[in-house]
């Protein structure tokens, strides 16, 4: 088995053994969304109006909760140092870790989003736009998040710092994603917004591997 396949298998096995860590951000995501109807009132119009923004903000916040898991345990157990010493490309291995993080923390979130779209009274076109933005936007969250996690993994008090570093960087994503869903609500084409998110994702995909690799090396010293 190639080292990459072995790493992917290990990541998946580990993730499904720690089920609580997998489920907690998801529960948090649902909880935050249930708070909004209680906070702003149950009027379907208002919920439909704020729905796209609420879902995306909740997705970003819940992703911050699980983000540390990306490198923390492996850093503390010295596994990242082992990876750095292996023959395989460090960048490739780290990208695989990011991929597996995306698979276990964001794919479930995309899957349960129809339920939340129902709760917030989103129409069907809005739902498809939501799916498209989540599918393209969450890998971006994982990639950018991995840079910041790589930098803060050696610190004991990384949690709030991670939010401070990452939230400003997610603003363009939030703007284009919610705007796509709002266009869908008005029966307008939302292709341009999706294209911009895809462009952001591709640029990040091209540049972030170096940044993630450098960030982890800084933490490893």
């Amino acid at each position, binding site marked *: 088995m190639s080292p990459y396949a072995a790493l992917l298998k290990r990541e998946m096995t580990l993730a499904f053994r720690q089920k609580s860590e997998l489920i907690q951000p998801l529960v948090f995501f649902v909880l935050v969304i249930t708070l909004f109807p209680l906070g702003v009132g149950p009027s379907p119009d208002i919920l439909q109006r704020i729905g796209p923004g609420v879902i995306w903000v909740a997705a970003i916040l819940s992703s911050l909760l699980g983000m540390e898991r990306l490198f923390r345990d492996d850093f503390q157990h010295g596994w990242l140092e082992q990876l750095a010493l292996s023959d395989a490309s460090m960048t490739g291995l780290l990208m695989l870790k990011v991929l597996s993080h995306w698979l276990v923390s964001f794919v479930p979130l995309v899957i349960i989003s129809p339920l939340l779209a129902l709760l917030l009274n989103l129409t069907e076109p809005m739902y498809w736009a939501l799916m498209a933005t989540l599918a393209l936007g969450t890998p971006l969250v994982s990639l*950018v998040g991995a840079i910041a996690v790589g930098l*803060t993994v*050696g610190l004991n008090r990384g949690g709030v*710092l991670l939010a401070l*570093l990452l*939230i400003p*960087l997610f603003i*363009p994503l939030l703007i284009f994603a919610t705007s796509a869903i709002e266009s869908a609500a008005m029966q307008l084409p939302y292709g341009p917004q999706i294209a911009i998110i895809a462009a952001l994702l591709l640029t990040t995909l091209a540049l972030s591997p170096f*940044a993630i690799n450098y960030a982890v090396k*800084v933490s490893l010293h």
Partner: protein
Amino acid sequence: MWKWLHPYAKPERAYQLCHTLLPWFATVAVVSLIIGTVWGLVFAPADYQQGDSFRIIYIHVPSAILSMGAYVAMAIAAAVGMIWQWRTAYMTMIAIAPVGAVMTFIALFTGAAWGKPMWGAWWVWDARLTSELILLFLYLGVMALYAAFDDKLQAGKAAGVMAVVGVVNVPIIHYSVEWWNTLHQGATISKFGKPSIAPEMLWPLLINLLGFAAFVGAISLMRLRNEIVQRELHRPWVADLVANSNARAEKE
């Protein structure tokens, strides 16, 4: 071409350079800030639409320009540190950060105080105000990350990554926010060919811009000097420095 620059990577030389440049920057800053501000407040004509409230422009625009300029300077310092492994470049980066954050705060505050009489609200979610606010968060992130590490070389590298990532994102954030909502008036002095502002209003603005730039330079030099000494505490040249400053203090 780069040969003349290299000696300044050495902290001692960088310290001496700061020492030589500081008085010049400080003088230019004080003189231009006084001239520009007095000219702007007393002698410049009032705007025919906005009356005297437009005089806030003489601090708002320079601080806004410098807030972005300082961010770019900080990111360049970080990139230099990463590429050529200069410790002094990271020190420069962290010396600029608080100055840039203060410029951003000034731009935000004066923007709010200008917006209240013009738009009727202290804060509106206008494109430029919002991107300026995000810029402040980016500065705070770099400073917080630097402060979180005990090993300051590691801190410099980590904060440097964030500074570079931030500078890549600043245009994206800016255009996304602009696209999202715009209410702010167009740029005042970006069109130098045909400025949308009368010359007698423009001159004090340019002088104040020079003043703010020199101020940012002077404070950054001062903070860089402190940072160098702080990090080089155990070197002989710092001991000489302390001995000299003691001797001077006794003479006075």
